């Protein structure tokens, strides 16, 4: 699924199908509101010398404590008769300047410490980070007070104090990222290219850390302004008569009840400023953070949306098939683009039969399999056509409740990576019991017995003991056996196995394959087996479907397809794999690349790479031709000569 979802996303980037960062930010209405308010405040503050404002420090005792909207003083005056509007704008200017410069200083030193600690590791890391820990162990306001106490009150000293107090925040954030990046392969590659440590740190690692630095800055700047205000409020920041939001608040404190506007106005300004910065900062983080960018913010629904234009009615189900899929179409909608991942797939699996789907990454084989039980994430995926009949029941028309009942019982899945499908915090016994109890009302003791017997079925030695193991205590092969046991827990009729052995070593792969082969005969379960390896197909599959650009291009029995492939793509795919025992064999690479599924040609999708392609291949959609019993090919110029010989 991951591969299929990633494949269509790639071309989107180059063709600007995906909106750029600014558009994404503007899509977020809260962030936009923050941006507008912040921009207005910054503009006003920047324009302070140009605006027709009275001198903010000029006192006029005769006009003291005028209420807002008084003549000549829009926001009134304070206890010394100074114009509050003028002081507010000049004060905002100071607060902003202090907050931003403190952020920049903290970001610079904090990031530097974090980068060096993360990259160097070992003793340097320990030394630097323990130092940072010590700074963090003091209450921040106490530390800031101590620094100001040593340096003496004043705006500049307050700025230093706030910067120092916030360095640990940056250092810890950046160190984590730098640590991960420094172990990446491109850093090793740079080292082998002859770059020195300093060059690697600043030329290779830093550009990759920069977004995180910006995110951290955008979320801390509001906090810094608050802290500046706090210090000034205590009289340790801006010194009279200079205006700054914190000191204005401090001045108003004593007359809060007689003239509330003197403190409420700067308070509101602080609130608006910090709030707008935080909203904007959150928006910036959502746009820049790669983890959120990859779609973690979209919540897929429990089941793939079914939007069939025509619901086929008079389909006579194949009597021999447990699972019968006709004309399955699945699409992904990204922005304005439609990616036709699966474009009309027919397949039937009988009892105890194993059908293999073979194809390159991005060919749509996983999406086809996931569509059957509605496991393709929506958004962006949707099923736009076809039926999937399980014992004659249309799965795409079934209720959500029914699908939930069938998932894990009649139809179960085995995925590629057992480490990520098993929950790391529960024992395999707990997980197996949960799988059993989800579908069968058994008391815990009986379920445990059944779980142990399932582990025995998948040939795990000492099953009662193994139930108590956590996934990380088992080897890769054992974990995959547990996943298979889970798939068998509720008498599955169909097991959908998506590259179940790709992550395993060859000797373990052989074990798992022969286990699956034996189990399907014992339990009479059909297997839909997805793989890219013809060797694996030979070991387990009765029939094979070769998939290319969302369609089956050839189907037939494994022996027929391997001995006499009819579609040129199948033939090429077999020829390009080295075969054990034939080292002299010349490998025949397939030139070109698979088509992008949002711009499929009208005719044959393989024509661009096909040596046999002629004009009629590109003219119209290629129909499926029956070549014999259970043998089809989607090609107008198939390799029939070889087929006839065989």
């Amino acid at each position, binding site marked *: 699924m991951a591969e299929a979802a990633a494949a269509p996303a790639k071309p989107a980037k180059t063709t600007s199908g995906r909106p750029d960062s600014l558009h994404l930010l503007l899509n977020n209405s809260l962030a936009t509101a923050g941006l507008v308010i912040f921009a207005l405040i910054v503009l006003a503050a920047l324009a302070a010398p140009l605006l027709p404002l009275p001198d903010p420090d000029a006192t006029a005792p005769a006009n003291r404590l005028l209420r807002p909207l008084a003549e000549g003083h829009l926001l009134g005056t304070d206890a010394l008769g100074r114009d509050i509007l003028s002081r507010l704008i000049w004060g905002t200017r100071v607060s902003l300047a202090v907050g931003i410069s403190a952020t920049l200083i903290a970001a610079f030193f904090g990031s530097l410490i974090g980068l060096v600690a993360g990259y160097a590791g070992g003793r340097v890391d320990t030394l630097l980070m323990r130092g940072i820990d010590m700074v963090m162990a003091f209450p921040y306001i106490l530390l800031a007070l101590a620094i100001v106490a040593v340096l003496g009150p004043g705006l500049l000293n307050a700025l230093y104090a706030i910067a120092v107090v916030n360095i640990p925040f940056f250092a810890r954030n950046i160190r984590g990222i730098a640590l991960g990046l420094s172990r990446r392969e491109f850093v*090793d*590659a740079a080292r*082998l290219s002859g770059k020195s440590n300093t060059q690697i740190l600043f030329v290779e690692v830093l550009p990759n850390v920069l977004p995180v630095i910006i995110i951290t800055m955008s979320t801390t700047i509001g906090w810094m302004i608050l802290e500046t205000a706090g210090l000034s409020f205590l009289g340790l920041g801006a010194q009279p008569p200079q205006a700054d939001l914190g000191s204005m608040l401090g001045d108003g404190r004593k007359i809060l009840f007689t003239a509330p506007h003197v403190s409420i106005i700067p308070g509101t300004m602080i609130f608006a400023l910090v709030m707008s910065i935080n909203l904007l900062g959150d928006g910036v983080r959502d746009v820049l953070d790669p983890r959120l960018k990859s779609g973690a913010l979209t919540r897929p629904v429990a089941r793939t949306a079914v939007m069939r234009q025509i619901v086929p009615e008079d389909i006579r189900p194949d009597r021999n098939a447990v699972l019968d899929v006709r004309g399955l179409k699945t699409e992904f909608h990204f922005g304005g683009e439609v990616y036709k991942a699966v474009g009309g797939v027919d397949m039937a699996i009988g009892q105890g039969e194993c059908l293999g789907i073979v194809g*390159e990454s991005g060919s749509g084989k996983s999406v086809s399999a996931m569509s059957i039980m509605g496991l393709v994430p929506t958004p962006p995926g949707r099923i736009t056509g076809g039926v999937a009949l399980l014992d004659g029941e249309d799965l795409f028309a079934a209720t959500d409740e029914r699908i939930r009942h069938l998932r894990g019982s009649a139809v179960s899945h085995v995925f590629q990576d057992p480490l990520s499908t098993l929950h790391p915090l529960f024992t395999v016994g707990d997980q197996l019991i949960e799988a059993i109890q989800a579908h069968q009302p058994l008391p815990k003791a009986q379920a445990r017995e059944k779980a142990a017997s399932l582990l025995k079925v998948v040939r795990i030695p000492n099953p009662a003991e193994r139930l108590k193991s956590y996934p990380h205590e088992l080897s890769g092969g054992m974990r995959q056996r547990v996943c298979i046991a889970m798939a068998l827990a509720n008498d599955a009729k169909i097991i959908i196995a998506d590259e179940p052995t790709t992550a395993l070593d060859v*000797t373990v792969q052989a074990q798992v394959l022969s286990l699956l082969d034996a189990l399907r005969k014992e339990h009479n379960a059909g297997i839909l087996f997805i793989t*890219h390896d013809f060797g694996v197909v030979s070991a387990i599959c009765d029939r094979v479907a070769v998939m290319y650009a969302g369609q089956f291009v050839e189907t037939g029995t494994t022996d027929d397809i391997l001995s006499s492939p009819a579609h040129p793509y199948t033939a090429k795919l077999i020829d390009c794999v*080295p075969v054990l*025992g034939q080292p002299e064999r010349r490998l025949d690479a397939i030139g070109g690349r698979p088509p992008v599924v949002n711009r499929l040609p009208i005719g044959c999708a393989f024509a661009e790479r096909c040596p046999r392609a002629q004009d009629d291949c590109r003219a119209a959609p290629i129909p499926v031709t029956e070549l014999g019993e259970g043998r089809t090919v989607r090609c107008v110029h198939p390799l029939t000569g070889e087929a006839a010989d065989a």
Partner: protein
Amino acid sequence: MHEGVLLQIERAERVFGGGRTLFGQPKPAVHAVQDVTIDVRKGETLGVVGESGCGKSTLARMIVGLDAPTGGRILFDGRDLVAEAGRDLRRLAREVQYVFQDPVASLNPRKTIRTILEAPLIHLLHLGKGQREARLEELMDAVNLAPEFLDRYPHEFSGGQAQRIGVARALAANPKLIVLDEPVSALDVSVQAQVLNILDGLKDRFGLTYVFISHDLSVVESVSDRVAVMYFGRIVEVGPGRSVFRSPRHPYTHLLLNSAPAPGRKSLVSEDADTELPDPYNPPPGCAFYARCPRRTDMCNSRMPSLESVPGEEGHAAACFHPHGGT
């Protein structure tokens, strides 16, 4: 030193962990690579096969100087360059280069291909601007990519193209030896053949020597002149590709060959489920394959078999007390 030997690995060993804690307790240690001795001759391809955790990648990283052996020596052209690499990697990097398994992860996502390929030309070869331009064109041509790709970013490339850029970067410094660590296992089968064919062509064109590491037996068989099979940090069998694959001596090699799926091969020979690697923190005193071996006897569990050459077959050796007979 023998004639024509480019790289000599003598009893190389790499231990992870070990030492003592602050309170004097010994820390557990893992022998990732143990007692590996092997020569690589000029112009050949040495294939190294093994399953995950057998130490093949650690061996590769030691050859290129990204990791230092904790015991033994690695000599390149007679000089102990790897010991030097601890101080300055550049000298070794001019002679030995590395191709990574994951082609996309080995390219910095924020650099253009030009910047990535220029780095070894600037830092290792100290070429001027004009020379660099000519060399870049030559490199892109060597890996069969259009020169206009130079100004693109890594995410714009498919896996196969990215791996060809990885190969071009390794070539840039004009090395004599390239270590390829699973260079095709992250690629689709159709692309795998492209990269293998390009690697084959480059070897002749630039007179290169390869150390080719892979878990895929069929790929190793198709590219290698000689093959070393690793298990649990040691070489258990080594020899010319033909003899190792046609008449494997070590029971582990036998098992590997019989487990490998191949088109047309119906049933795979498989062992019982109770077969796992020994605990690396508590290695067995004898042969590491003892627990899985169908030919084991008591002596296998008490003594470590050493690599003994197979009588009648030049250069073929296996570390087993009860090897399979020749065919």
